[in-house]
């Protein structure tokens, strides 16, 4: 009985130590584990030009413009307080539209973010189209997006 007890305590103690160690490591690497920066982070951290980063937020309303060459797409990514202008040449995913959450990969160039890839981010809400129509009709619809 005592030996079983002892093994139980060793296993529990080992797991507790492992948990503490992992928590410390993860909190130390907190900054490196984020997938993207918000426009506010970009402004606050003074990210230098030419470094590869990802910017995430909502595509600002009325900001999407196709340039005259027909390929380049200009829009602004917003997190509610700050915005970053983005320029992108290439195909956008189906979900890309104004008000939609996006993550762009690329580099800053004199305040403009030159994106090499644009990914769409959808939220955790799933519902049939009819429900959305009904919500919109009754005025209860809220556009939601990724948390900054």
């Amino acid at each position, binding site marked *: 009985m005592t030996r*079983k007890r002892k093994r139980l305590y060793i296993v529990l103690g080992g797991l507790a130590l492992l948990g503490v160690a992992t928590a410390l490591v993860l909190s130390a690497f907190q900054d490196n584990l*984020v997938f993207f920066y918000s426009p506010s982070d970009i402004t606050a951290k003074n990210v230098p030009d030419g470094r590869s980063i990802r910017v995430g937020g909502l595509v600002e309303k009325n900001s999407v413009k196709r340039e005259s060459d027909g390929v380049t797409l200009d829009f602004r990514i917003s997190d509610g307080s700050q915005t970053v202008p983005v320029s992108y040449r290439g195909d956008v*995913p189906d*979900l890309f539209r104004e008000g939609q959450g996006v993550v762009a990969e690329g580099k800053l160039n004199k305040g403009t973010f030159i994106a090499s890839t644009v990914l769409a*981010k959808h939220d955790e809400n799933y519902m049939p189209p009819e429900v*959305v129509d009904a919500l919109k009709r009754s005025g209860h619809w809220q556009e939601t997006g990724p948390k900054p």
Partner: protein
Amino acid sequence: MLRLANPNRFMQWSGKLLPWCAIATVILLGVGTYMALFVAPPDYQQGESVRIMYIHVPSAMMSTFVYAVMAVSSAVALIWRHPVADIAARESAPLGAGFTLLCLVTGSLWGKPMWGAWWVWDARLTSELVLFFLYLGYIALVNAFDEPTRGARAGAILALVGVINLPIIKFSVDWWNTLHQPESIFRLGGPTIAPSMLWPLLIMVLGFAAFFVTLLLLRMRSALMAAKLRAIRLQQIEAA
């Protein structure tokens, strides 16, 4: 509990339970698949692609659930030295690896049309990939020893160390910003999936769980029978 886990008693009750689990699997997966494909509505954003969810979410849930089963069995085997617990852990691993692979593949197929990428290295996807490697590492380690009991003990320790990955997978979407969307079902404030989509999903989850129990019982029974067969052969050789 311990009495039910005696190998002979285990063979008795698992033999009775097995056909019922198999029947439940067929009914739940049949009804669930029909509802997922024909009854559930398309999503307002994702359209028909949302139907991948009915495979992706259950396999993701099972990938972590099976690991939890494997870890608890490993702990019981380490602490109380119970032979059936060892077998339960060892026989769970390939099933868990299968669910994890299914989760990764369906997620990839879903990610391309919705996000625009087959794969990204965000916290959720990476931690799920680590889970897959943990399963493979466990399987390799358990089979790497000539003496099965030593392999089982080394594997049990690895399985317990890997438990730390389960909360990381679960909370990765809350702790860090990720491309993967946050939790839709088990969250404060209730699910954010419309009931017409949630019901087919829950039936599929139960179907996957029943499928796992059926396969696990089947695998454990054959492992026990194989061990018995080896013992009988050894006796015959010694008698001769």
